[in-house]
């Protein structure tokens, strides 16, 4: 029983990370119908931005919650800018091309960030500075570290914040309109270019937050860390129903739970294969995902 609870706690914190990244996939897909392959690599850049900021401020060995928050916000701002730049220079020129062209461009951007990262940062993993003191809380027989707790809390706050932005603010309304029909939204006077840029900024900032949080819990960062995590987060977004914010959250948590569940069994080497097995299953059973609604396609 206790091991089960322990696995659930571990799964929740892993799932919360997938959820944070899945939110970015889901928002961009909702607005542009584009799988932003580079999103997982923005998460990697977030971790590296945090690493360089923390080292520049000399935080290694001087843990401080206040500075940790500032570093996270800084990494989020840097990645938001990177997201906007990627959209402007890579995706905008191909926006009116066939979707396949945009998809290949996205794969290209992803490879550029991964291998560009290897050239610039080096391929060997780096160790992320301890910005906050590590503590472990015990509840009954279940243990949780403050980093894992932080990940879960931040993910929940972000989800509610995002729901608020999308459903209660002016820019959120514009996002929903653009998602519903880009050309009509434009005719109604919505600056769709700005809405798309905002979507990329927001999604990239969330990925950066995910990157810093993960680096706090597992302090090894390398330029290819976004590849697998990004793909699994994408599967999470599809599982929840792509385009749906609560869906991304639920999908992320489910993938996290399944993965930690499998790690505890004899089949732990198959851990990386779970997400894709799940993806194939959803595609057969319910392609629109848990929270998605099926859309009738017309010519």
């Amino acid at each position: 029983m206790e091991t089960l609870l322990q696995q659930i706690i571990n799964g929740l914190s892993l799932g919360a990370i997938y959820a944070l990244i899945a939110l970015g996939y889901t928002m961009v897909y909702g607005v542009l119908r584009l799988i932003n392959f580079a999103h997982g690599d923005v998460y990697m850049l977030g971790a590296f931005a945090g690493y360089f900021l923390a080292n520049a401020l000399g935080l290694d060995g001087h843990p401080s919650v206040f500075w940790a928050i500032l570093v996270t916000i800084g990494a989020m701002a840097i990645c938001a800018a990177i997201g906007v730049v990627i959209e402007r220079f890579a995706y905008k020129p191909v926006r009116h091309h066939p979707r396949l062209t945009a998809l290949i461009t996205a794969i290209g951007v992803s490879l550029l960030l991964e291998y560009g990262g290897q050239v610039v940062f080096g391929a060997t993993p780096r160790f992320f500075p301890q910005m906050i003191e590590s503590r472990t809380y015990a509840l009954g027989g279940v243990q949780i570290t403050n980093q894992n707790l932080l990940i879960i809390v931040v993910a929940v706050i972000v989800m509610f914040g995002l729901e608020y932005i999308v459903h209660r603010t002016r820019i959120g309304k514009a996002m929903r309109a653009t998602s519903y029909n880009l050309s009509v939204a434009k005719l109604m006077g919505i600056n769709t270019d700005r809405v798309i840029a905002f979507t990329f900024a927001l999604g990239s900032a969330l990925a950066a937050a995910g990157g810093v949080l993960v680096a706090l819990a597992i302090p090894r960062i390398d330029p290819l860390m976004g590849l697998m995590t990004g793909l699994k987060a994408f599967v999470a977004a599809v599982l929840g129903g792509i385009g749906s914010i609560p869906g991304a959250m639920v999908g992320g948590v489910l993938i996290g739970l399944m993965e930690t569940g499998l790690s505890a069994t004899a089949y732990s080497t198959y851990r990386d294969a779970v997400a894709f097995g799940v993806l194939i299953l959803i595609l057969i059973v319910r392609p629109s995902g848990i929270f998605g609604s099926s859309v009738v396609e017309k010519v």
Partner: protein
Amino acid sequence: MPIGRKLLTIAIVLAALAAMNQIIEYGVGDFRINPYYARIISLVGINITLAVSLNLINGLAGQFSIGHAGFMAVGGYAATYLTVYHGAAIAATVGGTPMQGVGSLVVMTASLVTGAVAAGLAGLVVGIPSLRLKGDYLAIVTLGFGEIIRVIILNIPAVGGATGFTAALPITNIFWIYAVAVLTIVIVRNITQSTFGRALGAIRSDEIAAEAMGVATTRYKVLAFVISAALAGVAGGLWGQLFANPLNPQNLNFVKSIEVIVMIVLGGIGSITGAVLGATTLTILPEALRTFDQQFPGLRMVLYALLLILLMIFRPDGIMGRRELSLAWFRRRGGGPGQPGTRVAPLATAGTATRSTRDEGDG
């Protein structure tokens, strides 16, 4: 073409391949080709098979698979497994050994057929669920499939797991590599010009319209996918049994799939000659840049990535677009007695590359 001429053509091609094999593998008189160049020529042939077969699904049918290396791995491991564990028994039935003469001919044929069947079955398993849906999902599923295959291979001790399948016998030679490349080109070209190929072209241009016109879209897509996967499996079988090239799951990952995609994107998605051109260029070019790559590891992939992005933004049609280079084309250019009606790709003008099909959400 009458049957007599067909047989004659096949005989001439086989003789030419055998002669090429003799020159490159063994040399003529005192002439020996530099083994390093011979190896590059081998890799060019295998990459041509990979690129042309991927072109069937990505170019002709307009679907987007990024798991070609996964099928290559399935075929490669199945083919190599057969040779290593049953090769001697198979060769014994004709009274030979797997390494020479008739024995090697029989073993190689059996091994490549096994690779094709295994990869084709894998293609069926992956294709049926994912090809019912359109577009982007196939990309993710094939990518995921490639990773699953890698994880599974790592966990099979009989094929060496993470250390690679070092027991493989080097029975691949230039003859086999180029026989497979020619066969692949002929198969894909014949598909292009058949009812099947026309159906795939219709699916590429507009899937919903094609379905409304009575094209069995899923069936054709799955069939194309299975053929493409089977051919990749044969390429894998050749690659796995190449001299001093141990099969290793690490070499058949996502990056390998991307390399093949860059080849067809550079050549022109949908063009067979484009795929051949792309495969040749992108096999020789990295070799020319080898010293450069050793100084800055990872830079080769950065160049590939930039090439992909810039091609998509400035020339999504690649070098060839959907055009084909053929003898008729040269005759026309030369003002000779070419027949304008013999163009290979009449679907060229209906290609998706020229028209925006982006769904702006009016559904």
